[in-house]
């Protein structure tokens, strides 16, 4: 019986540990070696941030939330303007070319290309699948076709921001506690994001940062600003 009790306690401890795993924020920035803080005030175009908030239901289904996402977009853009405005840079909002489908198509392809390159950085630079030929170097680029953006938005750099945020529903939280009691660790919601700064002359990703935070919340202005501040903490502008 004693054995059984010890075994139960160990299970409960494991389960609770599962809930409390890595309660701390992680950010890891990368930059190209040649990067230097530019002396003059840079014009930075803020590309439309790619943001989606979801609720994690008790059974583990992610439910996208339109109202939370709308709110988060407003908070994040406000926070970005504030944080960038305090640096040596002018932030201009991105506007797609009007009445020029061919040009708009080129913009869209660049945005999609960045999406792919950004995900590759996450997988191959930060993740476990390192590319041997990179040898740890951070030298990712979109290529010189970015001049299309440079011409149309008249900016030196483009800032891309990607955020995904999930929140455990009330049922999920109850399940996490309930299952922890019987020794099963169930993951809850987590905030994940990345930002990258692209030089619009060369197309190079000159700076990149990733954020993982199990506590963050983009639904309110305060925590949203805190997330953006962490994400852009060492943006070298």
């Amino acid at each position, binding site marked *: 019986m004693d054995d059984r009790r010890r075994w139960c306690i160990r299970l409960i401890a494991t389960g609770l540990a599962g809930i409390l795993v890595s309660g701390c924020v992680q950010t890891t920035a990368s930059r190209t070696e040649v990067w230097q803080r530019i002396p003059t005030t840079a014009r930075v175009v803020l590309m439309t941030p790619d943001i*989606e908030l*979801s609720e994690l*239901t*008790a*059974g*583990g*289904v992610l*439910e*996208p*939330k*339109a*109202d939370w*996402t*709308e709110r988060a977009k407003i908070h994040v853009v406000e926070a970005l303007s504030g944080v960038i405005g305090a640096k040596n840079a002018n932030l201009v909002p991105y506007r797609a070319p009007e009445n020029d489908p061919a040009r708009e*198509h080129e913009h*869209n*392809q660049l945005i*999609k290309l960045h999406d792919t390159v950004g995900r590759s950085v996450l997988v191959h630079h930060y993740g476990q699948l390192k590319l041997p030929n990179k040898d740890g170097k951070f030298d990712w680029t979109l290529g010189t076709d970015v001049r299309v953006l440079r011409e149309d938005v008249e900016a030196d750099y483009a800032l891309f921001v990607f955020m995904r945020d999930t929140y455990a*529903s*009330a*049922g*999920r939280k*109850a*399940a996490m506690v*309930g*299952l922890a009691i*019987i020794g*099963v660790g169930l993951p809850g919601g987590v905030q994940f994001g990345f930002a990258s700064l692209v030089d619009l002359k060369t197309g190079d990703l000159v700076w990149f940062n990733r954020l993982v935070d199990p506590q963050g919340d983009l639904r309110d202005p305060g925590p949203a600003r805190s997330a953006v501040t962490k994400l852009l903490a060492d943006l070298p502008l």
Partner: protein
Amino acid sequence: MRRAAGFVRLLLAFTLLVGCATPRGAPGAVTDLKPGERPALDSDEAGLWMAVTRVETSLKTSGHVVADPALNTYVQGVVCRLAGPHCDDIRVYIVQTPHFNATMAPNGMLQVWTGLLLRADNEAQLAYVLGHEIGHYQRRHTLQAFRDVRAKANATLFFAALTAAAGVGYVGSLVQLAVLSSVFAFSRDNEREADEVGFELMVRAGYDPQEAAKIWEGLLAERKAMKDSDPSIFFATHPPTDERVATLKALAAKTVPAGEPELGRERFLAATLPFRAVMLRDEMRLRRAAATQLVIDRLLASGAGPGEIQFFQGELYRIRGDTGDDAKAIRAYETAVASGAAPPETSRSLGLVLMKTKENVRARAAFARYLELQPNAQDREMIREYLRRLD
């Protein structure tokens, strides 16, 4: 005894938990979408729309979407004729892929795959499939499916927790399987309902009700020809079963068309013929000769553009390369050439097979004809090399 009481308490706790975690709207409780209706921003439906709008934004700039304005206007026109007041809610994207499919997203993003355009005989058959997809949209089937999955995932968690507590983990996986299979059954109920809506819409628009079952019959034959070896997702969720064909035939038998039932064959051919060679080339790349042969048989029977079809019939034999296929390929290419409307590549393919079967004189003639028809062909140097070797 105390353990049993604890177990009951746990069971109660999870029952309550699942109860409170199942939000607004049980499956089946939804009403049809009204024209122009948009979901409230704080609803689960708005979340689904947001997620698929992201997909749509990406699809808009995809290289797989056929941009041709004439073909798009044509298909959108058929959609509007069927959907009436929902016309403006539904946006058509023609996707270049040889598989048979059409998909509807909850926000009205309708994908029509070119494999469907290749397989429909006429506008009535296309209209039936489009009507089926419009049915998914009007009846909010994605929302129903999502709510069903969400409720079932919660229930699965409940069972998994219970069985883990009782120390019988493997029962949990059996329960999960059962729950999963009922998710698929739910989706088939939606399919049946969409079949009915599609049929109703096509009949109301004046199309021949007999055509609805025919498109499934064609697919059923293709699947049988491949001996169920095709791992297509489409067949898993849209089973072209005998039951389905029988239901549609019974519906057609009961239906008395209001006027002269329409096939819309000429309009359909005028819109799709310019793309048929591209669609057939994509189909050939799937390397499933048995099914492709049935597609070619149907196109030959329909009679439009026989020179082009005979060329692809020859290509099918040449690529398959079974015993006797060389001779069959040569016959098909020669029939194509004789029709006077064969694609120029017919002569090149004919030359290749004749070269293989060592009929050098005829091979030379075929290659020479190809160069005559296509003096600037990208592979002209290769063909000239063949001609030198055949001397």
